[in-house]
Every structure is written in structure tokens, then in C-alpha cells.
């Protein structure tokens, strides 16, 4: 029984709905390109970052919520007007954010275990 809750969502609407249901919690969100049936993403950086991010999840604060959000297929992501880019202002995948704060790690920053740990443990 882990001290945090992992919520898997797919797409912008599902993400927003799930977040609104958990207001008041410490929320972290990891955005990745869609995973195929073999469990691999079209986004090579996401494939590289995921095990590193997962490796640090034991450091998540007690009672926090970790959203694993698949953003969509590659063409959807490449469209500069997709909702993630327009409204959440995401610039790339993978992106790891601490919702409600300016704290974020983008692309290669997610490869660094110590940066991921810093986000999970910093105030």
C-alpha cells in the first residue's frame, strides 16, 4: 500500500476532470506520448524518462496524487494548437509538473533522477 495515489488518464478532458476531483491534494503530473500495445511510446524521450521518474516515486510526499497522463498520438501532439500546449502551456513531452506551482521538469530534465527527486521532496 503506497503513500501516494497513482491515477492513469488519457487525453486533456480526462486529465482536467480527474484533477478537479482531487483539489486540495499535492498533485504531480507526468505527461507522456501515448503508449502502444507493447507498452512503448512513440516519444523516445518518454521511453527513456519513465523508469527514471518511476524510480523516484518512493520519495513522493505522503497523501500526494501522481497523474500518469498520456497526451495522445504523435500527430495530435505535433499540432501546436492542442489543448495541452495551448491551455496547460506544455512545451514538450515528457514533462513532469507539480500542479499549482511553477515547478516543472521538461524533456532531458526528466532524465536526471536527482532533479526528479528534488521536485518530489522540495517544498
Amino acid at each position, binding site marked *: 500500500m503506497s503513500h501516494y495515489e497513482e491515477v492513469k488518464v488519457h487525453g486533456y478532458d480526462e486529465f482536467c476532470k480527474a484533477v478537479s476531483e482531487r483539489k486540495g491534494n499535492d498533485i504531480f503530473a507526468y505527461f507522456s506520448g501515448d503508449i502502444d500495445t507493447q507498452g512503448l511510446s512513440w516519444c523516445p524521450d518518454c521511453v527513456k524518462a519513465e523508469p527514471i521518474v518511476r524510480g523516484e516515486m518512493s520519495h513522493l510526499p505522503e497523501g500526494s496524487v501522481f497523474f500518469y497522463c498520456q497526451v495522445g498520438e504523435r500527430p495530435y501532439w505535433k499540432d501546436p494548437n492542442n489543448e495541452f500546449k495551448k491551455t496547460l502551456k506544455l512545451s514538450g513531452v515528457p514533462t513532469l509538473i507539480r500542479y499549482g*506551482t*511553477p*515547478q*516543472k*521538469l521538461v524533456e532531458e*530534465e526528466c532524465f*536526471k533522477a*536527482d*532533479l526528479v527527486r*528534488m521536485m518530489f521532496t*522540495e517544498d
Partner: protein
Amino acid sequence: LKDIQLNIEWHGIWFVTGTFDYDLVVIGGGSGGLACSKEAAQLGQKVAVLDYVEPSVKGTKWGIGGTCVNVGCIPKKLMHQAALLGTALKDAQKYEQWKPAVQNHVRSLNWGHRVQLQDKEVKYLNVKGSLLDEHTVKGSTRTGKEIMLTAKNIVIATGGRPKYPTHIPGAVEHGITSDDIFWLKESPGKTLVVGASYVALECAGFLTGIGLETTVMVRSIPLRGFDQQMAGLVTDYMEAYGTKFSWRSVPKSVDKLSSGVLQVTWTDEQTGKDQRDTFDSVLWAVGRAPETKTLGLEKVGVKLNKESGKILVAADESTSVPNIYAFGDIGEGRPELTPTAIKAGKLLARRLAGQTNELMNYDNVATTVFTPLEYGCVGLSEEEAESRHGKDSIEVYHAFYKPLEFTVAERDASQCYIKVVCKRGGDQRILGLHFTGPNAGEVTQGFAMGFQCGATLTHLKETVGIHPTCAEELTKVNVSKRSGLDATVTGC
């Protein structure tokens, strides 16, 4: 006594093996400290940076980044922008609306610094550093825990904090400073700003711009150290645009009334009489004091300037103790500016890593005061030029111009002015350049490079202006003060 014995033995061991915990420990994670530690780490040094914010009297504290990021340049410029927009749109943005935007940006900068430090493998410790000896730094956490670090070299970059006029009854209990103005829970309301430094004028300027009734209380002259003619134009503009000024006034006491408002009593030096008025907030902007008291400097032998309390430093930022350096606002005689601290910090790191012998050049530094009418300058004031060269050896060219932007808005441009102070004769080397007007910082930056290259009036006149801009008026300046001719620029 037992602890001291342990230390002595410990240092015997250190000197024998010659290893320290770190190559460099930097005390102070502000503009200077961060630049120095990141540069040193990049050059392969093992670095730790200690940053700790002693809460202000009102309890305000902030994250890494120092004064500039948290309670200085950055929030100041954002509020200045808010005020300019508020004035332009005649729909004053309220403090409550701007606060979250400003604070979010500052927090993103705090985070950015944390990521960079981690990335460059600089050890960051949120502890209050003090010197135990020339190679040992003690760090105290907020909860009182202590850690020790040993370092080959120690750099002090702890900066300064606003002064409180402790001799004025009620000043400490009821007043705030620039440490607090960007982080208040509620709007400061009707505010009295005491002081005439750029901090005082900039704060009063943006408070007026966001629609708050603001008064500036000045004891003698505005912007001491700056060209006084230009300072007068800055304050004239502020007065014309709604900031009240109480000249030649010295505050006597601050009392809190039962309604919660603050009653300030001051002496009008011209009449000798006492005056009284009420305000929601009183902001003290009466100078900044260096953060040296709790550093343990005396014990280790780091010499200070008795008057200012700042650390005495040589051209290479070294102190009276061989491996201890100090720079930034904490250094005696240094400009209290972010860019000079950053550059000095980087050069110091490079010298300590043995990469260069280059010293920081503190001359010809351009600055800008971000008052409602901005004032940018580089070089000497007219008074300073007169004093150094003699009135007969200088030629002052000037012009009153009107920004095109003001025409549309029907704004009064009487204080938009340019002054180029030159050495008389020959190509007339430029000694000082002064500009009041919109975007003064942007205008002045380019000319500062020319100044650094030894620009003359001939160079200036040979430069073709960009049209239509305010900056081009600098290239067209040709009326001297000596001629007595009208310096108003006519249309294009």
C-alpha cells in the same frame, strides 16, 4: 573548551592531508553568489552555496535568488510595468490582481535556480552561514541544527537588507520595507514612503500607478549621488502624475490608532512646525545595511569599514584574510547592482579556478531608475564632471524632446530630456550621458557600449538615428548649455 580542542586537532589533520570538504563555499545565494558558484562548478570545482533568509521584521521570507529575484529588480520591474499599464489604460490594476502574477514569476525563478544548481552539481544548503575560521564555515538550519563545512576558499556574498530608522518611535512595529511590499497579504492602501533613494521613488511610483494614494517624504535631496538636474525631472514628473511629495520633512513618530490606521508625525524643516497625517502603510526606504553582523568576521580577522559595516576588499575581491573573498553589495565601495555582482562573481570563480587573471572593471557601469518617468545614465553626473575637470573644461549638450508615444496620449513631456556631458575641445570625449523618457533602460544600454569604447561627441554625431524613436534624439544633440539657446527639439 572541549569543542575548541576538537577543532584544533581536526584542523591539524586537515592541513596534513590537505583536503577540504569543498574547493569553494559561497555564503549567500543571491545574484552574485549564484553566478560565482555555478561558474566555479562548471570549471570543475567542488562547490557549496549557503543561502538563508532571515525573515523581515514583518515576517516576510523568500526562496533562493537573493534580493534581485525576490524583493528587488524582478518584482520591482513587474510592478513598474503594471503601473505603466494601469496609467496607460486609465484602469488602475489593483495590487491584489498583480500580486499573484508577480509572485508566480518570482517562484518560477526560485525553481529555475534550484534546477540549475542541481544540474551544475552545486551543493545547495538552506542554512545560515558563519565563519569559524579561515577554512571552516558553520551552517545553522532554521530549527537550530548545525553543520560544518571546510573549504579551500570561502566567498562572502550576503548582500544587504533595508534599514529601519530604529530611533523613531513606532518605526519598527508599524512600518514595512521593500522586503515586504511585494508580498503583503492585502493592498498597502494609502502609503507613506519615507526616503528619496531610487528604492523609495520606484516604490512610490508603482504604488501611485496602481491607483494608491502615495506620499514620498524627503529629508533633503532626491536620488543622492545621481545627477541632480535629472533627479529633479524625475520627481517633477512624479508630482505632476499624482505622487505627493513632502519635502524637507523628517519623521518623528508613528502611532497606530484604534481604527488601525497609522498616524505619522513629522517635522517640517522649513517652518520648524510638526505635521501629522494618517496612512494605511508606512514604507521605510532610508538605506540598506550590509549583512555582516552574524558572519563571525571579527573573530576570523576579516576587516570591515567602520562606518558602512561593509567588508574591505581589494581589486580582486580579496579580504584581509588570504583565502576569503567578498563581493557584491557586501563589498565596500562596490556598486549595489545585480549585473556587477554577477560579472564580478564569474570572474572571481575563474580566477580561483586558475583560468584567468582578469579583474572586474567597475567603471562605466550604466544604470536606470525605473520611476514612472524612467531615468537612464552612464558615466559622470554634470556636477561630478565639473568637480573633476572644472566647469570651463566641459561642454554640456542637451535637448528637451517629446516621445511620439506621448503625442497620441496627449501626455505632458516637459521632463523628457537628454544631457550629454563632454570634455571640451577636440573630439569632445563623452564623460556622462543622461536620458529621461520611456524605456530609458533599453535606450541607455546601447549607448553604454559606446561609452565603454571611449565614445566622443563626434562619434555620437556620426551615428545615424533610427526613426522614429526617442533614442535617436541622442545622436542629434547639438545645443550646449553654455550657448544659452533654447534646447527644445522641434518636429521632424
